[in-house]
């Protein structure tokens, strides 16, 4: 239907207004603030200072580099594990078995749980006095009084497992949806040609899932990079800033020290990094070239 009317514009108008006010304008203003000194506590010093914030960030701020390094580690480990486990889970619940609908509803359910609630649940599970490790110790497995969140050696894996619990269903749902679009005769043809189970997976399933895998890993990587609520409530970035991500650092600069100018510069750095890696990833993976 090729029409020249005002109708489509009227239909997208509410979306445009909301996006303009709450997405486009804020980005522009972050860009402007990043070039300014802007603190709530010392308003008389506010004003344009050029690239001073960026100079300070790149050359004087160790915590910036540290939080960036942890963000990278967090994204790679989380997204990698979520993808592998999510794919395995999707393949399992795509098989036919009794109680499949119930099994799907159950294994997908953590997806609906918020980051804060996830923290609440896992704090109950991890707590050293009445948690699962205490219970296991009673049955003779491990030591009593293990505090996985308090020990610098275990805080990272413990946080990763917590986020996996909530994150794996996202991949499982998206990949299951795509698995269901693979025509069954492809597998039959492969079987007739003598392909074993593994060979069918590599030659039929994986190529078909490629675009879905690329898209879901990209969305998830951005999301995990920006994920604040779980880490903020579970570890608060500690112990000793060990689990501080870049967005968590930004939030702390903005909320605790009211340093909006410097916080905006950190935000811009995050943007540029996300944008750069997103474009690189889409180029390298040749997304959409199959279609």
């Amino acid at each position, binding site marked *: 239907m090729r029409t020249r009317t005002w109708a489509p514009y009227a239909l997208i108008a509410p979306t445009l207004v909301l996006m303009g006010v709450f997405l486009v304008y804020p980005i522009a203003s972050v860009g402007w603030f990043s070039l300014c000194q802007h603190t709530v506590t010392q308003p008389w010093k506010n004003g344009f200072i050029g690239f001073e914030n960026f100079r300070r960030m790149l050359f004087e701020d160790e915590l910036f580099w540290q939080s960036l390094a942890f963000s990278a580690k967090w994204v790679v480990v989380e997204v990698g594990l979520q993808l592998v486990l999510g794919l395995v889970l999707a393949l399992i619940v795509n098989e036919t078995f009794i109680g499949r609908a119930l099994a799907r509803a159950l294994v997908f359910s953590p997806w609906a749980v918020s980051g804060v609630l996830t923290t609440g*649940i896992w704090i109950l599970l991890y707590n050293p006095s009445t948690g699962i490790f205490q219970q296991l110790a009673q049955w003779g497995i491990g030591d009593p009084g293990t505090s996985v969140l308090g020990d610098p050696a275990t805080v990272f894996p413990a946080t990763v497992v917590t986020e996996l619990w909530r994150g794996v269903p996202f991949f499982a749902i998206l990949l299951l949806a795509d698995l269901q679009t693979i025509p069954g005769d492809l597998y039959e043809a492969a079987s007739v040609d003598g392909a074993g189970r593994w060979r069918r997976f590599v030659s039929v399933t994986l190529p078909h899932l490629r675009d879905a895998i690329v898209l879901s890993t990209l969305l998830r990587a951005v999301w995990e990079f920006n994920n604040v609520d779980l880490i903020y409530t579970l570890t608060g970035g500690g112990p000793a800033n060990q689990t501080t991500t870049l967005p968590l650092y930004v939030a702390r600069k903005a909320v605790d020290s009211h340093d909006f100018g410097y916080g905006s510069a950190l935000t811009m750095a995050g943007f540029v990094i996300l944008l750069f890696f997103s474009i690189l990833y889409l180029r390298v993976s040749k997304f959409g070239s199959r279609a």
Partner: protein
Amino acid sequence: MTQTLTRPKTVVPPPPAPPRRKKHRDPSRYFRLHLPLVLYLLFTLIPFYWMVVFAVRPAGETSLVPWPITFEHFDTVWNGVGFGLFFQNSLIIGVGTLITVTVFALMGGYALARFKFRGQKVFLLALLCTQFIPGAMMLIPLFVIFKSAGLLNSLTGLVIADTAFQLPLALILMSGFVRNVPIELEEAAMVDGCSRLRAFFAVTLPQLVPAIVAVGSFAFIGAWNNFLFALMFASRQDKFTLPVGLSYALGEFNTDFGALAAGGVIAAVPVVLVFAVVQRFLVQGLSAGAVKG
């Protein structure tokens, strides 16, 4: 319709089917399928179970199968701490966001799917780009906007913020769903004298019910779960939402795990139930091609 008519021409005798393996006699299924499934179910359900046990177990007990159960912790958080009010706030924000996101996504999704208009590609690109905008990093300018618009400590303000951040993806999904409804039906109705609006309500909308259920539910879940906006923009306790109340509970109830668990159950039950009902629609909708746009 045409497919069923032309199909008989192409029917050829099927090749002899390969001997089908008796699926349920295959012992490797236990290792490939049942064992990993059971392990994953344990990983999913033990944390939930742990929370429920803590919520109904009298303080001081450690039994894993508590009996008799108690509702004292629920009474504490619902009436004493104010989770009753937080629940109400979350519900208002969730339902408000559900309505605005669904209506705007239907409008915009229909526009994308059924019209060709100048600037369409730019609009679609802008929608996709929003997925890279980190809500957490926008807190500073958003706070400034909210303050100058008088939207701090207001449930309406939170509905607007949640809508703005959820709408782009909901709109993209919805346009995929609309595209899957055959346009011929709508055109036939218009030939019969319906206006486009009437044709939409009479023909297309009924076909979109599963899509509306899916998109609406996910808007509800997203708004119900949103933590950062609620934490930043509603600092007065009578405007707290469940996630904010829970985050304070995490600090305050460090010793009262029963109360924390009861608060968690209150926050979890509505979304987990909603999700259990609609996850089927989501998988169907996505596999119908919405993912590929």
